[in-house]
């Protein structure tokens, strides 16, 4: 595929520059490699609880978030990821060491051991941690972006959900309210063929999820989710529309979940051929690499250099996370209320005599 030595330079689309293209590559690679490292840590029983992979979806996750205005001082755009959006989190500035500490249930993880995997928040960098009940983040991001409107801030919100989660009442109530209020919100529906084991046909009778957009009176766009630059383009248009006061856009991203819902899932409900076909002909990273090299936007050496950087960064991060302490027992009592810790039960006191106190 490479070796087009003297062709005229191909123009980079969407007003991106070469540094952006390499940054996108790096985030996708970082996502994939970090997840692979997590698999190893899971095998070593260092990951506590479930492990969720985004193999085959890293491209859309990274490219969509890349369309946001990223700041570290709380003035940028805001994003709410779902379980498969590790890539989006990394783009927004989440650190691998934070993710590792989360997965390893450490006391110095962003959620201090109280919440798991990528469920964590940083309002400065611009991401809000999800909770497990699906759909709930849509109303929350409606509120986030409503406040941007209330304050006249030119900020945008982006919220992710799987095609399965579009069936929830929370999604519906949230996007409808955002539509009425013309909130600057981009809703990314990741159509990846399955919700856990449930194929899309049992989830919805709709022909394409983008057909839901007119039902809310919002803009809609469908995009090939494994074409990194196409996803960026669609997200960018939606983000710009939102920032300019054009309200909500629903983007349907067509992709495929090549691994199980979580690490324990044996994927019995998917055909091996289907998975194989996506892996061999439609991997977002492979396709992106081909584009970069084919258009002469990067060399193999560029990419190999980034790969090495990623590996090294992750080696370090894992060492740091591994050395992190677990939380302390009594941390359990903190942060239920602002007022102070909740009471310790009397059976944990040294001198229990509650009834004669």
């Amino acid at each position, binding site marked *: 595929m490479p070796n087009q030595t003297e062709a005229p330079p191909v123009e980079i689309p969407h007003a991106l520059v070469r540094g952006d293209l390499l940054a996108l590559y790096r985030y996708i690679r970082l996502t994939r490699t970090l997840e692979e490292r997590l698999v190893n840590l899971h095998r070593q029983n260092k990951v506590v609880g479930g492990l969720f992979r985004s193999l085959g979806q890293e491209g859309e996750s990274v490219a969509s978030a890349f369309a946001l205005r990223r700041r570290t001082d709380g003035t940028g755009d805001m994003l709410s990821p779902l379980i498969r959006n590790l890539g989006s989190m990394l783009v927004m500035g989440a650190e691998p060491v934070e993710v590792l500490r989360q997965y390893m249930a450490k006391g110095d993880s*962003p*959620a*201090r051991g*109280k*919440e798991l995997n990528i*469920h*964590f*928040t940083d*309002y400065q960098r611009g991401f*809000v*941690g999800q*909770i*497990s*009940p699906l759909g*709930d983040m*849509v*109303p*929350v*991001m*409606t*509120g*986030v*972006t*409503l*406040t*941007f*409107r*209330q304050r006249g801030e030119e900020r945008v919100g982006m919220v992710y959900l799987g095609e399965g989660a579009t069936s929830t*009442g*929370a999604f519906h*109530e*949230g996007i*409808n*309210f955002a539509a*009425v*209020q013309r909130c600057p919100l981009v809703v990314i529906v990741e159509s990846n063929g399955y919700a856990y084991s449930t194929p899309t046909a049992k989830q919805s009778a709709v022909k394409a999820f983008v057909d839901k957009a007119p039902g809310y009176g919002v803009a809609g766009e469908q995009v090939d989710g494994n074409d990194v630059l196409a996803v960026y383009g669609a997200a960018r248009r939606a983000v710009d529309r939102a920032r300019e006061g054009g309200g909500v856009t629903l983007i349907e991203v067509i992709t495929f979940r090549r691994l199980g819902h979580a690490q324990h899932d044996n994927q019995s409900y998917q055909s091996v051929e289907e998975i194989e076909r996506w892996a061999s002909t439609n991997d977002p990273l492979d396709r992106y690499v081909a584009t970069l090299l084919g258009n002469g936007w990067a060399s193999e050496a560029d990419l190999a250099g980034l790969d090495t950087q990623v590996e090294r960064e992750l080696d370090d991060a894992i060492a740091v996370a591994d050395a992190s302490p677990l939380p302390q027992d009594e941390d359990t009592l903190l*942060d*239920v*209320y*602002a*007022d102070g810790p*909740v009471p310790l039960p*009397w059976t944990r006191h040294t001198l229990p005599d*509650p*009834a*004669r*106190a």
Partner: protein
Amino acid sequence: MATLIHDRPEHVRLSAEGKPVTLLEAIREGIWEEMERDERVFLLGEDIGAYGGAFKVTEGMQERFGALRVIDTPISEIGFTGAAAGAAHMGMRPVVEMQFIDFISCAYDMITNYIATSRYRGSGGVPMVIRGPSGGGVRGGPFHSQNPEMAFFHTPGLKIVYPSTAYDAKGLIKAAIRDPDPVLFFEHKWLYRRPQLREVLPAEDYTVPLGEARTHREGTDVSIVTYAAMVHKSQEAAEQLQREDGLSVEIIDLRTLLPLDEEAILASVRKTNRLLVVHEDTRTGGIAGEIAMRVNEKAFEWLDAPILRVAALDAPIPYSPPLEDFFLPGVEDIVKAVRHLAAY
């Protein structure tokens, strides 16, 4: 607080002018004053704008504060409750109205899973208020009469307020709006416009702290711990018992249910040694249980009689007057229970 009283429409400057207010008017004034004081405070709910809400609590507010601070929402309890949380994340102080508190059940997941746990999960406190008309006695039937406190009492991270007087209602709604944590604020609709509850409130800004019970009536023979509409039924019973039996009944108005003011309850029990809990909510799983448990844990030796309770029947709240009257706890039930305790 640089309030320009003369800028306010008549119906929200009653206290400022020394005129008596109903419980509903007290809440309205409280919200209005907080809207004036803090531009982060804003309102969300169905029909709260031009219409002023089903009970007119927010009357005139959209006109005064604009459509971005008084937002008429679609019929979406999950949607606007969740949106309030998102706005709170961004530093706002949302106040959500449930048109009837019964519909808070639709947002149960959002409130208990998302909002109540946010601080714990590391997503920060969610300073917001969810308020709405609650309670029975108005022939509203099973879905316009509920007392939802126990659906949330069991959720760490929430606070629950349920006032019984105009003074407390105003002071507590203001404190709730200023609180750094999510507060559910229940407004008993049977008390909203009761003329007997009209009172002259301080002209100045005041709050009533969350988490503190109030001695509604001093007494020495039997303690009644109660809240909301039942404070007034208990008062009626106490007067009758004083008159007919010479009994001195103490009434503790919890005002805040969560966190529970354990000390106030224990102090009263230590004084009277007899405890009756009265709640309008249904019996099994009602708050009386938690109170009984706390007293067992911390003041068992002071009890001269079992802890008893008077509560609604274990049924959905029925519509027809004879049924609803039979369903709700009445003054006669309280009288009977107190007599029993006093004679124990």
